[in-house]
């Protein structure tokens, strides 16, 4: 059963070991070998030599001419004869063979590659240029499903390295098949497009929809302990989401502007762009003026000092649901947000006309930020503060144009129960309360004593003059 044509080449022993492989090759469909065409055994007679190398280096092509017949046998191309791809091959051949044209069979893939970035002139000008073999290999050809992220890493090493440290990469490493890989965001490799191409899934205006493939699914959020399940809806209704989806603003923040791209990390990770202490920097990438003001404020300074409870942008503006600051609902929500730390100030504010009107749902009256400022907020002890003694009258005059220094002596956060700080108010309150309790105690008792007597009186009268009250 030993086939013929042995001894053509040098390495008989290796060739003999691999000979049985040739038998199946005869049945390969795509390219019918010509009668004169060499068989696999013929080729392997030379190419089974691991040390076989090209005599002169060819740009973009491997130096080694070794063919791993076992790997070929395990690949989807196992049924192909050598000449199925190397159509012009003879055995032996003196001159180097021309590059294999994969497109002879895979014309669709070739066409797709031409539309995408990998087939573009810019990419093709690089060395090595991304061709079929760069990703799929040669004889050990791999289908897309068998490829790993390492395939992308051959060229995009830096991005892949960053990705491996991201929440997506780490989840993948733990075996989580929900987590996004390169293709989840960038699409199939052949027609892959750059982020500046409007057709790309990573295009600025398209990215939210791309992320939403996974992050609009509440079930996924539940499975992965993602706290905000309706993040996509919140974002699309936000000022950023509307600017992106309705106005097509390229400068409006999309998901990656805040969360990053390949290196997305959970907000609990101190290196995350959305870790509380890093949020001002993240927002400040666009809102530079606000960041500068915030950094000077009492809140910004506290954050810089490492106070973890200091409010950052998202505490007032929320993360995904960011609303227009002109909106009444948001303005009233912020008052409660301030009060979540400044409990006493909110309580005393609610005792005043200002606080009662806002409690009733109307914002056209002094709210926290109207007096204290928003991003520029400073303690009254700071001469630059809007509530510092030198500036308070001007602050009041925003609403009360005729306000004077004496007018500004009104205490908008007075606490009548605080005897040491507000003695006048304390005693006013005490007198009024005493008057109230005293009056009701006296007349309450008076009424309680009178009531039974009045019943007796009515009963007695009713007996003597029955019809009287109906007169």
């Amino acid at each position, binding site marked *: 059963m030993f086939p013929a044509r042995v001894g053509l080449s040098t390495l008989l022993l290796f060739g003999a070991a691999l000979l049985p492989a040739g038998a199946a090759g005869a049945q390969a469909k795509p390219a019918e070998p010509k009668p004169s065409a060499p068989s696999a055994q013929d080729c392997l007679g030379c190419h089974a030599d691991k040390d076989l190398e090209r005599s002169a280096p060819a740009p973009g092509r491997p130096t080694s001419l070794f063919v791993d017949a076992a790997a070929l046998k395990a690949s989807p191309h196992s049924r192909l004869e050598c000449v199925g791809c190397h159509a012009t091959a003879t055995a032996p051949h003196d001159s180097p063979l021309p590059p294999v044209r994969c497109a002879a069979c895979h014309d669709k893939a070739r066409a797709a590659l031409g539309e995408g970035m990998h087939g573009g002139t810019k990419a093709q000008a690089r060395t090595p240029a991304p061709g079929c073999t760069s990703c799929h290999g040669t004889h050990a050809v791999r289908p897309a499903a068998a490829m790993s992220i390492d395939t992308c890493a051959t060229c995009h090493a830096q991005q892949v390295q960053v990705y491996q440290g991201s929440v997506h990469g780490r989840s993948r490493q733990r075996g989580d098949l929900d987590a996004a890989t390169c293709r989840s965001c960038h699409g199939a490799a052949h027609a892959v497009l750059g982020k500046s191409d409007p057709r790309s899934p990573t295009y600025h205006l398209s990215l939210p929809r791309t992320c939403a493939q996974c992050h609009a699914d509440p079930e996924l959020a539940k499975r992965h302990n993602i706290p905000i399940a309706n993040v996509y809806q919140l974002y699309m209704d936000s000022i950023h989401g509307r600017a992106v989806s309705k106005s097509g603003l390229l400068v409006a923040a999309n998901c990656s502007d805040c969360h990053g791209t390949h290196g997305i990390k959970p907000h609990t990770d101190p290196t995350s762009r959305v870790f509380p202490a890093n949020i001002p920097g993240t927002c400040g990438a666009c809102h530079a003026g606000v960041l500068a003001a915030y950094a000077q404020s009492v809140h910004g300074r506290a954050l810089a000092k490492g106070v973890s409870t200091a409010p950052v942008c998202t505490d007032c503006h929320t993360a995904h649901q960011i609303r227009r600051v002109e909106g009444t609902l948001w303005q009233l929500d912020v008052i409660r947000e301030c009060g979540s730390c400044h409990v006493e100030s909110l309580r005393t504010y*609610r*005792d*005043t*006309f200002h606080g*009662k*009107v806002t*409690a*009733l*749902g*109307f914002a*056209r009256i002094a709210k926290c930020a109207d007096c204290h400022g928003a991003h520029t907020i400073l303690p009254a002890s700071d001469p630059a503060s809007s509530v510092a003694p030198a500036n308070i009258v001007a602050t009041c005059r925003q609403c*009360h*144009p*005729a*306000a*004077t220094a*004496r*007018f*500004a*002596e*009104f*205490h908008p956060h*007075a606490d*009548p129960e605080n005897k040491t700080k*507000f003695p*006048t*108010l304390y005693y*006013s*309150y005490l007198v*009024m*309360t005493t*008057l*109230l309790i005293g*009056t*009701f105690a006296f*007349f*309450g008792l*008076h*009424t309680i*004593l*009178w*009531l*039974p*007597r*009045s*019943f007796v*009186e*009515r009963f007695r*009268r009713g007996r003597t*003059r029955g019809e*009287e009250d109906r*007169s």
Partner: protein
Amino acid sequence: MSAAGRYYFRFNLYHRIIHGMVIVSFLGLAITGLPLKYAQTGWGAALSHALGGPFTTGYLHRFFAVITFTYFALHLGYIARLILIRQPGIFWGPDSMVPQPRDMAQLYRHVRYFLGLGPRPRFGRWAYWEKFDYWAVFWGVSIIGASGLLLWFPTFFARYMPGWVFNVAIIVHSDEALLAVGFIFTIHFFNGHLRPEKFPMDPVIFTGRVEEEEFRRDHPEEYEQLRAEGRLEARRADPPPPWMRNFSRVVGFSSLAIGIVLIWLIIMTALR
């Protein structure tokens, strides 16, 4: 000698109009003021929104405040006129509103009567609790009115007084108003209308007329004095016509109902 059907005037038209203004403005101020005081409660917010929100409610509150200042001025004018015509007994005596030693004595005897330890005191034109009602309104309008004016025109008054006065004004206005509302809707309602002898209401403040039997029973000293001095006939009145009785019932019961609902809300909020 049947007393039924014989009526005497207790309040003249001027008194009744003034009290009508008091009712309208007092209820108006209570309805427009309480939603702000109780802004944090559900009913306070609902009432405020029903009235068009705090700003509209504020305008309505000031409108009723103007009625209050008007009747207060009219009443001061009335007293000034009595002084000018040298009417005797304005500041002392049985017809005067000024508290006098006999009022204390009658209070003492009234309490003894409550306890079954003595007869009912013989009240004159004004019983001590009626004088208290009068002075409560007089005091209340002055205090609530003055503090309200301060809060109405803060920048004007800040030219003459320090800003902390407005902090005091907020407390005084709010607490004194609560006292007024609480007093009128419980004590005054009981004394004047809801106590079993008068239940469900005493229409005298609307009709101005009191029936002879009731007059003799409630104000015996005044009745006897008028008869002794021969002035009783001058106070004779025609029986209140049906329209006046109906008017009394509609206004009276409406006012009682509004007051009782408001005080019920206040008490429920306080007990919560």
